[in-house]
């Protein structure tokens, strides 16, 4: 889980793994590790989710953590434009370490869409690069399972 701080990485994991949401999650310091098994078609996959601390002026993401990652979610807060910039920087850094690796770009906080600074056209522009771009709301659960399932499917395709 990669992205700027407070974009909702921990909330997405909690929603996906435990099906819950809280407004009161504490900021992640270091790494939080969670696990979930998923079924994609006839196959099952054990996901070990590394929820990394957000990248901002207070904490930098240690690139050594991404070594060994099979794939990643690049999380953007739909209400904050600068979180897309952070995501893009992280994406380039990760690619320098991992090379071509499956990922999904996630625009989170779809429940606050009236406050969004991105239009559907903005999302289409990202998707036009050949990326998978999805909207989610960890609060309502919208799109959350789909994000993890899409990434899982892509991981299995590579096997």
């Amino acid at each position, binding site marked *: 889980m990669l992205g700027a701080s407070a974009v909702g990485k921990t909330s997405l994991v909690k929603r996906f793994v*435990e099906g819950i949401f809280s407004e009161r999650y504490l900021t992640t310091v270091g790494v939080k590790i*969670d696990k979930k098994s998923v079924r994609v078609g006839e196959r099952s996959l054990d996901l070990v989710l590394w929820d990394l601390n*957000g990248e901002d002026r207070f904490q930098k993401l240690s690139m050594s953590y991404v070594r060994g990652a099979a794939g990643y979610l690049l999380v953007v807060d739909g209400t904050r434009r600068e979180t897309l910039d952070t995501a893009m920087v992280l994406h380039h850094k990760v690619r320098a370490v991992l090379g071509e690796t499956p990922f999904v770009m996630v625009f989170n906080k779809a429940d606050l869409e009236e406050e969004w600074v991105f239009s559907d056209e903005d999302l289409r522009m990202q998707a036009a690069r050949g990326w998978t771009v999805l909207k989610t709301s960890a609060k309502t659960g919208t799109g959350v399972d789909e994000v993890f399932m899409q990434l899982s499917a892509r991981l299995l395709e590579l096997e």
Partner: protein
Amino acid sequence: MKRTMSSARLQPPALPQSLPALLDVAVLEAGNGAFRLLGKAPRWLRTLWPEAAAAEALHPESAFSYLAYFMEEARAVWAGEDGEMLRSDPWTELDREGHEWTLQATAMRLEGRRLLLISFPMTDFETVRRLLQEARNQGLQHHRLLKEIDKREVLLHCIVHDLSTPLAGIKGSLTLLRDDGQVRPEGEGLVRIGLNQVEKMQRLIREILATFSAEVQPLLPTLVSRDDAPDLLRALQDVAASMRPVAMLKDVRLRVAADPGGTWKVAAETTRLERVLFNLVENALRHTRPGTEILLRLEEVDGCVRVSVEDEGEGVPEELAPSLFEKFATGGPRPGKAGLGLYFCRLTVEDWGGMIGYEPRPEGGARFWFRLPRPSAGAGDVS
């Protein structure tokens, strides 16, 4: 002479088996392809990794995924010199009940032995997290405030372009109708009402613009030289002269009282000063009774110039007085007023280092006043 000791005397007594558990530290020693636990397992380890207490060959990276990453860096330490040590970042694991456990690992090489210690974070993890949380919350709050300011800018833009332009068109059309004599006598009153309403709307827009721009302007220093400083008496006389026709319509007298020999230069800027005076006089005109007088008095108080605007109306209800100079304080239902006039006055006067206030007149009515410092010699920053 070099003193030697027998190996029996060199061998220290073994540490108590329960010491690691008492210190909440899991001490593991790397062997051939696996680890073994030294001493008794602390309680948290028995919760998170129950097998650790019983099994002989342990693989901590299978119990704690984070360690798979950490081991790679730890190997360099274990292969290095005695006394080398590497501490991991904190990481958080969940137990079977979903409780979070934040841990930290330390790899060290000691007397040739390769040790892995797992414990609660050595640093004050909660303090660090609380500080980060606070800093990030403030960052988000800052971001929200910036967005609010942006929204206000958009609002101002709408007011200026979407309201002012059609209003100017309406005013122009009504003026042409009035001046061309194309309106029947019975319609003239309606045209006049229309023009009055348009002018009222335009005043309201000016008031809103003046207020919100005043919120920004204090950030910018206003440089006024003594020679350029406005004369408050002259400004007061100009404002009184411009408002006298309206006052006459309301059967209200406007009187300026000041020592003619006095000097009334103040540290201010003429346009905004006149706007402040205009707002106060207009406020008095709205609340006084016909057949009365509004007194505009100038006096010197404590080296400053004080202006008071006194009317003979009903005064301000006691409960409203404390919030008179706050934003959107209307003092009751008054159509067409946004409650920004006095707020603008306060922002502007305080911006210049002055003070503004209200007090009831002992003989009845209201007294609004403000005082401004005199300009210093030469150019000066009066913000």
